[in-house]
């Protein structure tokens, strides 16, 4: 009995309004609490407001397919008009997403794609090649053209992050421009700052002549920078990779991370909502060659495999990082 009472109380706290009039778009992320998705949410909310759409933002607590499947089922049950998701498993979601499609729900993926049969359209923040390239370029001139670099990846099971790392290794082996760089080891930070920290420390201890640590994970780059500062290695070992301005400002100002790159998640979220609306209004079909009118982002072209790519990564350094950070903090509060 008291249990129920408590439930009523707490539900009141957290239950979101169920406005039936507006169309409801669900934004389903891989895992809650990750700044990347928080940013995408910010962009999506802007677009939703502009288009008069109700945005449902949700995601699993653990980064697992089961979690997303369960959420997709509940979104289907809620008869939302669209599901916009960043998939954490390419195959596992297919049955549920196809069920959603059968129930007339528009399915659009962004950031991480599923099997092509499971969605009508995919908004790619950037191609894997582009994502790998950003930090790689920075690493190259931090290392002064040549030297040993260590890599901190995310959880060992994250497909995309591993694709980036593989691409990086390919670059250093095959592309003349990057031949000078040698990837000595790939360590897995597991999106856990203590783990990433230890792995980074392990790298610098094992390779005294290590020049650069490239972290393809936002937690990894922060942890590595922290380590470099703790060990007074600033200037000796340089850190770069993918990170978020608001998390990296003082690592950049401290010099541990002279520069890092990231795609603009806010724009990804923003574009995704416009694209979804277009899909539902049938102004686009998702076929190659379609042009999506994405509000302030202008026109974006759909390429092959129903994929629209956002473009080059954005590089932050001590000149522009601070204001970006403030902007984000103000937006997400």
């Amino acid at each position: 009995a008291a249990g129920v009472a408590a439930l009523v109380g707490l539900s009141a706290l957290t239950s979101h309004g169920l406005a039936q009039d507006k169309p409801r778009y669900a934004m389903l992320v891989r895992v809650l609490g990750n700044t990347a998705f928080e940013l995408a949410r910010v962009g999506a909310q802007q677009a939703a407001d502009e288009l008069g759409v109700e945005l449902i933002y949700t995601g699993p607590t653990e980064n697992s397919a089961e979690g997303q499947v369960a959420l997709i089922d509940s979104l289907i049950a809620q008869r939302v008009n669209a599901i916009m998701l960043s998939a954490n498993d390419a195959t596992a979601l297919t049955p549920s997403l196809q069920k959603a499609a059968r129930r007339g729900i528009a399915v659009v993926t962004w950031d991480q794609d599923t099997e092509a049969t499971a969605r009508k359209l995919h908004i790619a923040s950037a191609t894997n090649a582009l994502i790998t390239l950003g930090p790689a370029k920075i690493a190259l001139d931090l290392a002064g053209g040549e030297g040993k670099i260590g890599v901190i990846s995310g959880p060992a099971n994250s497909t995309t992050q591993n694709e980036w790392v593989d691409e990086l290794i390919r670059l250093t082996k095959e592309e003349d421009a990057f031949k000078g760089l040698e990837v000595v080891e790939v360590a897995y930070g597991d999106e856990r700052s203590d783990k990433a920290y230890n792995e980074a420390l392990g790298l610098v201890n094992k390779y005294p002549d290590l020049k650069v640590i490239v972290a393809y994970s936002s937690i990894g780059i922060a942890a590595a920078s922290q380590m470099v500062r703790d060990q007074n290695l600033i200037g000796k070992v340089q850190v770069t990779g993918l990170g978020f301005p608001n998390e990296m400002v003082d690592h950049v100002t401290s010099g541990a991370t002279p520069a890092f790159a990231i795609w603009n998640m806010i724009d990804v979220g923003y574009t995704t909502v416009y694209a979804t609306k277009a899909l539902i209004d049938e102004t686009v079909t998702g076929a190659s060659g379609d042009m999506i009118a994405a509000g302030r982002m202008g026109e974006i072209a759909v390429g092959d495999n129903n994929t629209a790519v956002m473009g080059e990564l954005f590089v932050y350094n001590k000149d522009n990082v601070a204001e970006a950070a403030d902007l984000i903090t103000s937006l997400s509060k």
Partner: protein
Amino acid sequence: MSGRGTGLRIGSWEIGLVGLLIGVVILNSSLSPYFLDYYNLIDSTFTFSEKALIVLPMALLIIARDIDVSVASIVALAAVLMGVAADMGAATPVLVGVGLLTGLVAGLVNGAIVTTLGVHSIVVTIGTLSLYRGIAVAIVGDGAYTSFPASFAVFGRHYVGDVVPLEFVIYAVATILFAVLLHATIFGRRIYAIGTNPEAAQYSGIAISKYRIALFALTGLMAGLAAVLLTSRLGSVRLNIATGWELQVITMVVLGGVGIAGGTGTILGVTLSVFLIGFLTFGLSLINVPGIVMNIYVGLMLIAAIAVPNAGKFLAAYFDSKRKES
């Protein structure tokens, strides 16, 4: 808690659970128009059928004063090995065999270690929790197994007569089997005896170690079955599959009125708690409450279920003594 070693008799605990269940249903249907909808409800069983399959043997295990926190890892190991078999082109029956066998063996190992070392099972299974998932991780690495034959998808995705998920049917059948086993057979009686007073049970000629090993093996087997259904439903296996299940399963068992001290609990109780938690979380997901916040409600319910009755007793006793003072 329901009377010690009771048979199918409905105890105060079960009645309390029914009350809570009704409360949750009312609450949910008031919070979301989509809750009281047959298809939604029946689909929601997907989210707990697999765990519930492990809840059943776990209840027996805890009634017999043991516990197995490695079940989630067993699921992962079984799933990964099925994935390997699938990659080698194994047919559906073989895959099922691999899943069940893996679970059985893992369970047997748990049981053997616990009985031979004479260490509390929570300690041992904390060890195997890392070991089993560790092996799974070592095998699957950062990849995923997705090449399962189409026929394999039946277990997780097929609807019996297009109305009831096969998963749920399997769970229902298992529940009946376990209810009979625990409440109507000599094995069930002995399980209660072992859980209530192991020494007396041994002095009465019950082969305690054999029973404990058997229960661990059964738990492993059911975890293997859960792995089959889960893998079939997802069609994809990664190293983080079924993470955190152990605590969810144990929560369901305990909320079902199975005394952690052993000797008490009924299948009816754990069945009620499975639906209680299942419907609660489904209802909350309909109003898009994040999973981590749902856990707050589940946690509170777990505590309240025991705290509220005890609080009554406590206050009664307190005022009683107060009266004596004056």
